[in-house]
């Protein structure tokens, strides 16, 4: 049995040889925020030939949520009409006003949860409606919807969702619709793909598509994914391959997909930095309108806005790298972030700050 190190060396060597034969710069987009972090934490980027550049995609859920969403949540919490419940990573995200939910700490207006499964008990004990900030991609969405269904089954009627659910495939299609996208291939997300399966990426094989490889998060997974991509690029192919088959199936997770289908429908929402992407968001179906915070509290549409000097929206769109921002590492750090790309642990700026830029 070969060791991990031996296999890694072989993969790197083959990536180098293939890249040399291709003979031009190659831009690979890692779609998922966890890949953005793991590629840099494990220094995979430093093992790759200089011709390969890794571009971070719009794969950090907190980062692609527009600033106006945070402002709406702040207004709702301060109105005394509801308690806000949220995952911890939303706490420090500034709204357009510059204020974040963390500014309300100690006032009992915001409850942080680790898992949506805590929501039923919390709502049951709350005199006020509880509005969960339902931010996330396909990995998180079924967990939140399951929690809402669990609450309803338990007769708990005061749990509502403020949905900012986003879906990955339409966002990738949107990126590819820009003729100047410059992307040669996609390192496709591991855990989003666990839910949606290989079948969700069929559009990548059509005209104008690009090679895609579903990739896990260990060093060997990521090197194997990159090798599979450069091999496709060399051969001029555009196929969807799966380097994470121990977790991702062709059909995804049918139970999770059914949970989503039963309660949610596609809608058009703003992605920070990208604007409105057709069908790349999910909202509650009309029959669940009573549990839709946006409708129940007549919240205005969440607008996009950016703090002065922040280039997060261009980083999300793959058009700029964090070190190109004048605020990066100076005015803007993980301890005192200006924009969401530095707030979230999965944000591109936070990953660059913690683990350094390339080399």
């Amino acid at each position, binding site marked *: 049995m*070969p060791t*991990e190190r*031996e*296999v890694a060396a072989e993969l790197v*060597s083959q990536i180098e040889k293939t890249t040399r034969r291709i003979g031009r710069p190659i831009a690979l987009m890692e779609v998922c925020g966890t890949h953005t972090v793991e590629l840099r934490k494990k220094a995979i980027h430093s093992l790759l030939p200089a011709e390969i550049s890794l571009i971070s995609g719009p794969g950090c859920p907190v980062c692609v949520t527009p600033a106006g969403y945070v402002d709406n949540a702040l207004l709702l919490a301060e109105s005394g009409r509801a308690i806000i419940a949220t995952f911890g990573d939303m706490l420090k995200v500034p709204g357009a006003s510059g204020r974040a939910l963390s500014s309300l700490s100690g006032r009992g207006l915001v409850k942080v949860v680790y898992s949506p499964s805590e929501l039923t008990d919390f709502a049951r004990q709350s005199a006020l409606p509880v509005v969960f900030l339902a931010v996330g991609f396909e990995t998180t969405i*079924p*967990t939140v919807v*399951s929690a809402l269904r669990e609450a309803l089954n338990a007769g708990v009627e005061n749990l509502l969702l403020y949905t900012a659910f986003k879906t990955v495939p339409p966002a990738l299609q949107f990126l590819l619709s820009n003729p100047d996208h410059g992307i040669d291939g996609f390192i496709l997300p591991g855990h989003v793909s666990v839910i949606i399966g290989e079948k969700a990426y069929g559009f990548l094989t059509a005209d104008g598509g690009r090679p895609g490889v579903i990739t896990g998060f260990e060093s060997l997974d990521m090197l*194997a994914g990159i090798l599979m991509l450069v091999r496709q690029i060399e051969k001029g192919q555009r196929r969807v391959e799966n380097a994470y088959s121990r977790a991702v199936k062709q059909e995804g997770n049918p139970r999770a997909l059914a949970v989503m289908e039963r309660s949610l429908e596609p809608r058009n929402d703003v992605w920070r930095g990208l604007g409105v992407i057709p069908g790349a968001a999910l909202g509650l179906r009309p029959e669940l309108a009573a549990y839709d915070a946006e409708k129940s509290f007549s919240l205005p549409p969440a607008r996009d806005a950016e703090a002065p000097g922040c280039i997060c929206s261009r980083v999300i769109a793959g058009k700029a790298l964090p070190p190109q921002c004048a605020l990066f590492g100076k005015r803007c750090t993980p301890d005192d972030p200006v924009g969401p790309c530095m707030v979230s642990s999965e944000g591109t700026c936070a990953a660059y700050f913690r683990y350094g830029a390339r080399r």
Partner: protein
Amino acid sequence: MKIEKILEGKKALVSQGTVSVKVDVSLLENPQPGDHVIVHAGFAIETLSLAEAEERLELFRRMAELTGDA
């Protein structure tokens, strides 16, 4: 993480090393003790194929050998 015990209400006790936590397993088809699962936000979202996980090194090595050098 590994399922140690199936609990009431579509929950299970899962462990990794010395840490064990209760997670929701309602998104899995037929969870069984001994299954290795991926946990996200307190929910098990998929069962890992242990056979493929064990063969991972070998798979990647064979892949590296399938060179396009020829």
